[in-house]
């Protein structure tokens, strides 16, 4: 992981697109330093328009959320939760524990195994690439906005009145253009601590599990992987290591892909339509 230098999967050229290898991001907040280089690298590479954000007062997070023009977002978490000997010295409260902890996590589109946005897209603009990432074809999207309410993670959004790409839906592209050329996505490439790891999904999952074991051995008892494989999303390609509950990182604890509601909704549509048909014809026939 850290210290692998040019041998790291973040640095090596690859052929994942050509070989159709499912790839992923593994984002590890325990080594994130909150520098926001990923946000900057993403904006620069993808030519994403700037957004003027207020000074929020929410720690150092003035980006607030992922959206049409924010594809990486560093969360700054402040918790007054004693948890292991993270900071030694005068900051401690005397019993060897920290009085608080400050965690940073770079959030990104999850590239779901079953993606709400992709399922819902009526134009077929949203597609799955060779590496199983979810990609919005900007030249097809007509900006209907259905993906916005279909994403269980609140990631994708429609760009309003902001050139370029006004009116279309935008989200992380997984730097598909870079990946075709064998390059690492801009955010992972720019990450100075390899908090963002890019590579084949299977390798990253093994790495993630190892990292959780490591952290638990170091008394971070609430370390866990966030990869909702047990829900209808069936896993995410950009998964995270978390200290504590997912909702503290604004990650839904049980995300569900909206297509699970299809059967009930369509059933009700057909039943209501037939009820109306039968009722109106009978009423007109007999009255």
């Amino acid at each position: 992981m850290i210290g692998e230098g040019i041998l790291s999967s973040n640095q090596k050229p690859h052929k994942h697109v050509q070989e159709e290898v499912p790839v992923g991001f593994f984002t590890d907040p325990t080594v994130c330093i909150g520098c926001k280089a990923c946000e900057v690298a993403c904006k620069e590479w993808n030519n994403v328009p700037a957004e003027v954000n207020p000074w929020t007062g929410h720690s150092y997070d003035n980006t607030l959320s992922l959206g049409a023009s924010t594809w990486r977002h560093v969360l700054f978490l402040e918790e007054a939760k004693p948890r292991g000997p993270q900071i030694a010295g005068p900051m401690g409260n005397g019993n060897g524990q920290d009085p608080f902890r400050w965690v940073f996590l770079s959030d990104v589109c999850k590239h779901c195994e079953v993606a709400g946005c992709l399922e819902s897209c009526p134009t077929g603009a949203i597609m799955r690439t060779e590496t199983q990432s979810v990609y919005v074809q900007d030249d097809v999207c007509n900006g209907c906005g259905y993906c916005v309410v279909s994403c269980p993670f609140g990631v994708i959004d429609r760009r309003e009145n902001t050139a370029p790409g006004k009116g279309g839906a935008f989200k992380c592209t997984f730097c598909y253009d870079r990946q075709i050329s064998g390059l690492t996505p801009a955010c992972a490439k720019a990450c100075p601590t390899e908090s963002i790891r890019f590579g084949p999904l299977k390798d990253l999952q093994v790495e993630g599990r190892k990292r959780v074991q490591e952290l638990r051995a170091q008394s971070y008892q609430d370390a866990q992987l966030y990869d909702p494989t047990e829900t209808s999303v069936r896993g995410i390609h950009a998964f995270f290591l978390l200290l504590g509950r997912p909702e503290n990182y604004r990650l839904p604890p049980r995300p569900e892909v909206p297509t699970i509601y299809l059967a009930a909704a369509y059933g009700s549509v057909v039943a209501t339509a037939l009820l109306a048909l039968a009722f109106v014809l009978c009423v007109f026939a007999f009255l």
Partner: protein
Amino acid sequence: MNDRFEKRLDDLREEARNKGGVTAAGVKPVGGPIPAQLGAPEAMLGTGYYGLPFLKPPVWKWMIAVYFFIGGLAGMSGLIAVAALMKGQYQMVRVAMWSAGMGGILSPVLLTWDLGRPTRFLNMLRVFKYQSPMSVGSWIVSAFGACAVPGLGFVEWHWQNMQGGQLTPAVQIIAAILVIGSGMAGIFLATYTGALIAVTAVPAWNLHRVLLPFHFGMAGLGSASAMVELAGFRQPALNVIGLFAASAQVLVMLYLELRKHGAADRALHEGKSGWVLRIGEALEGPLALALRAAGLVPEAAIAFLLGALISRFGWLSAGTACANDPEAVLASQCGDKRLAESRFPHALEPATASSQQSRSSLPRKNTKEHKA
């Protein structure tokens, strides 16, 4: 000012010298990296992320709510036209087809208007995806428009010919086929909009996935019949349809008032969106029913139409309110119990008694002393 800081530091130094450590909390600048709640860990347990929402609110504007209303009205007008055709009431066929045909034109206009890139509206017909109600709906709107708009033309043509005493069988047959086509597409046009918002990640909508198509379909049926009545038709069949639709809305309203989903769909009951929805429901449900029972047919029809329009706005704004409410999303995924133990202190909703208590128990004495 500096003297006060120096004095505070001197006090701390003295405390450290005497006790071998400092127990008092230090200076806590507002908005600094160290939370002001320091020392009261329970206040920060499971706080969510600054009360920011999990979901993105819908980007749809008023056009979509109006479309839900117009689509329901037009779709079910197609069905009324079929029934009237069956009965041989050509004048009523004509009136209902005017509703259907105008709706068949207005619906795609409203939908296209709301698109982020309106010039690409035809991309909707690039693919057919059964798993996307928006895609299915685009095809339904297209099929309905393709039947209702020329259908209106042929019905009018036929009507003009009848007035002139000449009957052309070909026109009559084509008109009949198009009317039946509008009716068949129409019953799905009026109901699919419920599925459209139900098959989303917004809890206030998806929790009512069975209710919504029924609710919207019945609202459409009542609106279509009300429209025909406002055009001057009075007959028991229309009155029975009106009673049926209004009773259905009363049931919907009663069901919603049960609040069986707790905090997850509270946007339907509380706040501005809750009231818009409730007013719409009251107009198209109890009020329309009462007016109709009292024999005030046009008043009942107007109340129903107004209610059907307002409740569509209510549903749309409830979706926005719900998506912006992190506690509702958490409640829908983990239940109210989990929500109670991890209430967001920063959320826009008024704080509960328990969270106020934990806030007031914070050790702010030192900060106050310092500021004074």
